C-alpha cells in the first residue's frame, strides 16, 4: 500500500517512464542475464565438449597404438593433440592408471592422484581435466553373428575391456577471454539496450505525456479561473479528441461564465452603483469626519488660545480695576485706566476677529462692487499702519507700479481689510528690516488682467510644512508664535475668505528666517480704464536726487516722481549723494533733493552732519522724510527756508504738496499737514437716524456731524417713515427694533413710497447674526451695521455712497480716542443711567421669563453698552443674548452686575477725560 501511494505521488510523465522503462529494463536485464549465462555456459560447455572431443579423438587415435603398444605412434597422436591451442597437457594412461606417455606441462603428483582416484571412483575430475577410456571397439565380421555364441562368450569381455585412458587438461585462457568478451558485450548490449529503450520510452512517453501535460496545464489554468486557456490541439487519436473536447468544454465554460457574468453584471449593476455611491458617501463622510476632527482639534487649540488671548487682557482689566477700586493717586489711576483700555481694546479686537470670521463662515458678508482708487486705498493702509511700523523701527514701503489703473471695481472695504490684516501681520512678525506693500498689474495665463498686491517682509518667515495650513482657521504656524506674538490665528483665514469672496486668490512664498511674501490676486475689474497718468505740473522735467538706504523706498519714490515726469536720480550711499551733488554743480545742479532717513540716520548728530555737508555743496530745495511723526530738524535746519520734511511713508498727495510748496512758505509739519488735509468725509450729507435709544441716537448724530453730515432723528418707525417721505435724505440709518413700526417694516414702506428712487437704507442691529433679523427684508435694506456701531466702518460705508472711499481702520468697534474726547456731555451723563436702566429691565424680564421682552431689552442694552467704545463693555455686550434665559439666575445676576459695573467704570472714564 505504501508503494502504491509512493507511485501515486509520481507525475504522469514519471509513471509513463516507469511503465515504459521498467519492463524493458527488467526484460533486458533478464534477457541479458540469460543470454550471458547461456553464452558463458556455452563457453564452458564448449570448452568441455572441445576437451572431451580432443580426449575422445585422442582415445580413438591411440587405440591402435595402445593395442599394438606402439609408443612412438602414441607420441605422434599426442603431439597432434598437444598442438591444439586449448590443450595444456595430454597423456595416455594404461589400464592401471600409469602414464604411458604425455605432452605439455603435466599435472603435479597431487593432481595426478586426484585424477586417478576420480577415475577409480568414476566421479568428476579436477577442473579442466578430462579423460576418456580407451576401449577396443567391436567389428562384427559374420553375417549371422548370433549363430556364433562362442565368439561373444569367449572373447567379448576381453575384447571390449578398457585398454587405458586418454587424459587431457585444457587451459582456460581462451575461455576466460571469451567470458570477458561475452561479459563486455553483454554489458555493452545491456547499457545500449537500456539507454536505447529509455530513449525510446522517453520519446514515446513524450508523445503520450506531452498532450496530457498540455491538457493538465490547460485544466490548471481553467481551474485557476483563466477560462480563456486552450489546449494547442496537435495530437491525433484519443488525445486529439480529448484536447478538442477540453477546448470545447472550456469554450462552453467561458461562454457560460461570460453569460453568467453578464447576468450578474446586469443584476448587480444597480447594486454596485449603490455601493459606489455609498462608498463615495462614506468617503465624503470620512473626509468630513477628518475635517471635523481637524476642526475639533483646531477649535480646541483655538479655545485654548482664545482663553489665553482673552484671559490675559481680562486679568489686566480685572487687576487694574481692583486697583482703581482701591483708590490711589490720580496720576496712577489714569495710567491704570489707560492700561485697562488697552487690554479691553485687545479683547475687542479678538472678539471682532471671531465675529467677522463667523460672519464670513456663515456667508453673512456680501461683497460690494464699487469703483475706487487702489492707490488711495493702499496709501490709506500705509498711513494707518505707518505708526505701528515706526514703533518697531521698520520701513513700511508702498511700491506702486505705474501701470496700475486709476480706478478699480470691487469692495474697497473688504480689500482694505485684507491688506491691513496682511500688513499688520507683516509688521507683527518682523523685528528688523522692512515691510513692502507692492501693487502691480499683470496678465495671467489665460490672458486676463490681474492685480497683484503683495506684502513682503523680512520677518521670521514660515516653515514650509506650516505653509499648507497657514490659511486655515485658528491656525498659526506654531504655538510658540502665539505665545510670542499673540493673535487669534483668524487673520489669515479671514483674509483668504475675503479674497475668495472677491473672486481672488492669495498665495504665500516664505522662507523660514528670511521673510514672507503674501500675494493677493484680484481680477482686474475696471482695468480698461487708463493707467495712472498725472501731470507733473510745474516740477515736470525737474532734476531730482533721491537718497534712501532702502532700495524699495527709492524705487517707490522714483516710480511716483517718474509718473510726474521728473528726472530722477537715486542712490543709497551718502557719499555718493555728496559726489553727485558736487558733480551736478558743474553740469546743472539738482532742483530738489529728497533724503529718506533711516531710523539710524534720524539722530540729531547725523542729520546735522548731513545738512552741514550737503549745504556746503547744494543750496537748493531739500525734503527730509523721517520715520518719526513728531520729528523736527535740529538746530540750523529749523531756520533753513529751503528745507521741508514729512513722515515716511509719505502719501503722493503730501509729496506733491511738498514739491509744490515754494521756498519760504510755511513748512509743512507732518502732523499739521495731515490735520489740514483731513477732509470731512460726509460733508453736506443728509442723514436720517431712526433709533429709539436716545444715547445711541445722540452718539450717531455726533459721529456723523463730526464728518460734516447733517443729521435728523426719528425715535420710532412711524416717525422715520414720515421723515423719509418728506425727502431730502442721502441715507437712512434704521434700527431694526423700533416702537410702533419696526425697522424692517419702516424700510419697506419707505421703499414702497420711493421705489427705485429710494435713498439707501442701512439696518442697525445689535445681533451678531444681523442678517437673521433681515430675513424677508433683505430687499428693503442696502446694507447693515452691527451695534455698537464702528465709527470708521460707518463713515467708510457712508463715504462709499458719496463715491469717495475712506478706508476703515482695523475694526475695533471703538470710538477713536480723539473722538471720544469730543463726545457730548449729555452722552457722558446719560450713559450710565441708561445702561443701569436697561440692565434692570433685562433683570426684570428675566425674572418674568418673558422671552420676547428679554430679547428686546437685551437688544437695547447691547446697542448702547458699547457706544462709549469701552473694550470690556464691547466684550460683555457680545454675551448679551437670549441664552441668558437658560443661564442660572445667580450667574445671570452676576453677569448683569458685571455689565453695570463696567458701564460705571466707562462712564467714569468718559468723565475723567473731560
Amino acid at each position, binding site marked *: 500500500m505504501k508503494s502504491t501511494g509512493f507511485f501515486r505521488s509520481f507525475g504522469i510523465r514519471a509513471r509513463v517512464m516507469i511503465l515504459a522503462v521498467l519492463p524493458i529494463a527488467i526484460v533486458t536485464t533478464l534477457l541479458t542475464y540469460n543470454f550471458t549465462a547461456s553464452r558463458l555456459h556455452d563457453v564452458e560447455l564448449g570448452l568441455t565438449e572441445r576437451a572431451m572431443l580432443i580426449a575422445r579423438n585422442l582415445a580413438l587415435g591411440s587405440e591402435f597404438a595402445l593395442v599394438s603398444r606402439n609408443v612412438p605412434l602414441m607420441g605422434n597422436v599426442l603431439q597432434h593433440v598437444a598442438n591444439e591451442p586449448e590443450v595444456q597437457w595430454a597423456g595416455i594412461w594404461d589400464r592401471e592408471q600409469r602414464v604411458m606417455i604425455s605432452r605439455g606441462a603435466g599435472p603435479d603428483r597431487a593432481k595426478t592422484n586426484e585424477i586417478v582416484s576420480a577415475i577409480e571412483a568414476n566421479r568428476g575430475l579436477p577442473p579442466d581435466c578430462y579423460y576418456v577410456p580407451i576401449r577396443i571397439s567391436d567389428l562384427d*565380421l559374420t553375417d549371422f553373428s548370433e*549363430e556364433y555364441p562362442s565368439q561373444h562368450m569367449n572373447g567379448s569381455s576381453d575384447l571390449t575391456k578398457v585398454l587405458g585412458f586418454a587424459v587431457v587438461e585444457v587451459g582456460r585462457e581462451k575461455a576466460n577471454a571469451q567470458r570477458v568478451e561475452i561479459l563486455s558485450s553483454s554489458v555493452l548490449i545491456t547499457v545500449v539496450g537500456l539507454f536505447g529503450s529509455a530513449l525510446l520510452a522517453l520519446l514515446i512517453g513524450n508523445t503520450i505525456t506531452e498532450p496530457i501535460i498540455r491538457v493538465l496545464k490547460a485544466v490548471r489554468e481553467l481551474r485557476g479561473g483563466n477560462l480563456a486557456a486552450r489546449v494547442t490541439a496537435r495530437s491525433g487519436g484519443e488525445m486529439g479528441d480529448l484536447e478538442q473536447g477540453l477546448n470545447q468544454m472550456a469554450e462552453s465554460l467561458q461562454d457560460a461564465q461570460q453569460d453568467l457574468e453578464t447576468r450578474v453584471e446586469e443584476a448587480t449593476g444597480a447594486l454596485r452603483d449603490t455601493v459606489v455611491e455609498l462608498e463615495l458617501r462614506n468617503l465624503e463622510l470620512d473626509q468630513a469626519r477628518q475635517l471635523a476632527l481637524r476642526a475639533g482639534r483646531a477649535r480646541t487649540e483655538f479655545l485654548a488660545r482664545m482663553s489665553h488671548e482673552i484671559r490675559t487682557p481680562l486679568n489686566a482689566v480685572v487687576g487694574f480695576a481692583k486697583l482703581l477700586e482701591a483708590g490711589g493717586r490720580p496720576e496712577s489711576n489714569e495710567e491704570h485706566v489707560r492700561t485697562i483700555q488697552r487690554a479691553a481694546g485687545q479683547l475687542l479686537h479678538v472678539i471682532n476677529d471671531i465675529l467677522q470670521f463667523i460672519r464670513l463662515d456663515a456667508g453673512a458678508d456680501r461683497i460690494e462692487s464699487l469703483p475706487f482708487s487702489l492707490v488711495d486705498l493702499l496709501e490709506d493702509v500705509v498711513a494707518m499702519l505707518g505708526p505701528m511700523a515706526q514703533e518697531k523701527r521698520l520701513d513700511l514701503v508702498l511700491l506702486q507700479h505705474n501701470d496700475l489703473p486709476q480706478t478699480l471695481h470691487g469692495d474697497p472695504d473688504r480689500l482694505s481689510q485684507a491688506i491691513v490684516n496682511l500688513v499688520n501681520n507683516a509688521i507683527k512678525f518682523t523685528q528688523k528690516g522692512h515691510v513692502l506693500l507692492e501693487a502691480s498689474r499683470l496678465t495671467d495665463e489665460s490672458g486676463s488682467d490681474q492685480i497683484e498686491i503683495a506684502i513682503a517682509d523680512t520677518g521670521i518667515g514660515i516653515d514650509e510644512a506650516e505653509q499648507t495650513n497657514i490659511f486655515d482657521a485658528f491656525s498659526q504656524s506654531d504655538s510658540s508664535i502665539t505665545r510670542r506674538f499673540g493673535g487669534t490665528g483668524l487673520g489669515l483665514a479671514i483674509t483668504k475668505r475675503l479674497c475668495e469672496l472677491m473672486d481672488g486668490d492669495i498665495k504665500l512664498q516664505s522662507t523660514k528666517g528670511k521673510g514672507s511674501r503674501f500675494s493677493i490676486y484680484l481680477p482686474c475689474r475696471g482695468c480698461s480704464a487708463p493707467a495712472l497718468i498725472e501731470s507733473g505740473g510745474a516740477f515736470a522735467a525737474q532734476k531730482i536726487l533721491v537718497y534712501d538706504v532702502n532700495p524699495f523706498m527709492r524705487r517707490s519714490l522714483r516710480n511716483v516722481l517718474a509718473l510726474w515726469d521728473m528726472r530722477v536720480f537715486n542712490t543709497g550711499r551718502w557719499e555718493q549723494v555728496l559726489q553727485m551733488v558736487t558733480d551736478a554743480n558743474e553740469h546743472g545742479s539738482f532742483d530738489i533733493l529728497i533724503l529718506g532717513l533711516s531710523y539710524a540716520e534720524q539722530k540729531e548728530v547725523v542729520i546735522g552732519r548731513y545738512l552741514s555737508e550737503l549745504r556746503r555743496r547744494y543750496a537748493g530745495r531739500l525734503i527730509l522724510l523721517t520715520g518719526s511723526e513728531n520729528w523736527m530738524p535740529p538746530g540750523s535746519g529749523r531756520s533753513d527756508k529751503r528745507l521741508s520734511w514729512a513722515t515716511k511713508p509719505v502719501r503722493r498727495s503730501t509729496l506733491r504738496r511738498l514739491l509744490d510748496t515754494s521756498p519760504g512758505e510755511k513748512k509743512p509739519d507732518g502732523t499739521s499737514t495731515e490735520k489740514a488735509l483731513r477732509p470731512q468725509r460726509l460733508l453736506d450729507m443728509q442723514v436720517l437716524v431712526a433709533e429709539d435709544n436716545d444715547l445711541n441716537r445722540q452718539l450717531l448724530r455726533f459721529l456723523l456731524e463730526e464728518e460734516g453730515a447733517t443729521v435728523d432723528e426719528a425715535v420710532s418707525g412711524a416717525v422715520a417713515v414720515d421723515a423719509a417721505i418728506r425727502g431730502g435724505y442721502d441715507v437712512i440709518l434704521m434700527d431694526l427694533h423700533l416702537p410702533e413700526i419696526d425697522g424692517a417694516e419702516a424700510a419697506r414702506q419707505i421703499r414702497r413710497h420711493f421705489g427705485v428712487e429710494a435713498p439707501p437704507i442701512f439696518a442697525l442691529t445689535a445681533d451678531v447674526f444681523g442678517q437673521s433679523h433681515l430675513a424677508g427684508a433683505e430687499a428693503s435694506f442696502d446694507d447693515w451695521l452691527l451695534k455698537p456701531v464702528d465709527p470708521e466702518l460707518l463713515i467708510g460705508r457712508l463715504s462709499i455712497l458719496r463715491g469717495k472711499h475712506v478706508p476703515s481702520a482695523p475694526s475695533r468697534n471703538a470710538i477713536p480716542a480723539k473722538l471720544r474726547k469730543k463726545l457730548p456731555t449729555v452722552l457722558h451723563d446719560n450713559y450710565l443711567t441708561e445702561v443701569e436702566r436697561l440692565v434692570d429691565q433685562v433683570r426684570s424680564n428675566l425674572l418674568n421669563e418673558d422671552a420676547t421682552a428679554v430679547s428686546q431689552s437685551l437688544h437695547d442694552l447691547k446697542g448702547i453698552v458699547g457706544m462709549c467704545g469701552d473694550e470690556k463693555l464691547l466684550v460683555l455686550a457680545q454675551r448679551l443674548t437670549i441664552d441668558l434665559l437658560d443661564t442660572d439666575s445667580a450667574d445671570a445676576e452676576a453677569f448683569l452686575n458685571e455689565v453695570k459695573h463696567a458701564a460705571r467704570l466707562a462712564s467714569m472714564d468718559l468723565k475723567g477725560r473731560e
Partner: protein
Amino acid sequence: MISSQQAKQRLCVGRACWCLLVYLCLYPSFAWSANTVLVVLDTGNRIHQSVLRHFRELANASLAPESAVEIRSLDFNQHKAEETPEAGLIITIGVRAAAELQNHPVDVPVLNVLIPQDAYRQMISAARRETAAVFLDQPIERQFAVAHTLLPTVHEAGMLLGSESSADIASFARAAGRFSLDLDVVTLDRGASPASAIQKLLTSNQVIVSTFDREAYQPATAKWLMYLALRQQRPIIGFSYALLEAGAAASVFSTPEDIARHTADIVADWVHTGIAPTGTAFPRYYNIGINARIADKLGLDAPSEKVLEQRVRTLLGETP
C-alpha cells in the same frame, strides 16, 4: 416301440458314427506324420523367420501337389515345454534350436541348418547321434578361387588363423595350391599382440584370404587387419557379406534365401526318396560380392560381380 429292424438300423448308424469318430480322431495324426516337416527355430530371430519364410515358399515348389509337405514351425522354447509333435522330418534353424534338439532327442530325422561348422562339430562331439547339417561357412576353395580370379597374377596368399585351427592348415594349403597360390598361414597366439601378427601377415603376402576363426578374427583384430591391409594395399577376400562391407575387396557369402533353398532341396530329396537326410554340407547356393570402393582404392581391375561369379563357378567346376 422300436422294432428290431429299426433297432438294427439304429445300431448300424451308431456304429458308423463311432467309426467315423475314430477315423476322424486318428486321421490327423496319420496325415500329419506322413509328410510333415517341423521347423524348430527362434521365432524371435528375424533371420530365422526369413529362412522359414523362404523355406515355406520354396519347399513345395519342386514337389508335386500330392507330395507336398506340411511345414509346421515351433519355437525352440516350446519344444522344451511340451512333447515334440509327430513329424517326418525336423529342421532346426540356428545353433540354439539345434542344441535344443540335441538335448532332447526325438525319433525323427533332424536337419540342422544355419549352423557354423565349428559349432556343429562341438555339438556333434558331445552328442549321442549325428544329424544332417547345412553349414553357414563357405568352403575355403571358394575364397581361393575368388582370389585367383580377381588377382590372377598374385601367388602369395596369406591366412591368419588361431592356434586351434592349426589342424586345418594342411588342407588349406592344398586348396590354395589348386589355384596356384602359395599359402602363408600366420598363427595368432592367445594373449599375444595381434598387431605384430597382422603386420607380419600383410608384409609377407599380396592377398589375404580369410576364413572364420574365432581366435584369429576377434573384432579388434579384424578391424585393424582391415585397416592396415587397406593402408598397405593388400586386398582381403572375405567369407561374409559383413566382411565385404567392412573392407574386404571381395567376399563369398550365402543369404538366408540361399540357405532356405538348399534346405528345400534336401526336403524334396527326402520326399522323393523317402530317405532321411544325412551328412553335412556347405551351402550349395552362394554369392560373390565386390567392394567397388575398396577395389578402386586398391587399384584392382575388378570385373562385375556377375562376371566374377561366373568365372569362379567355372573355376570351381560348378554348373552356372
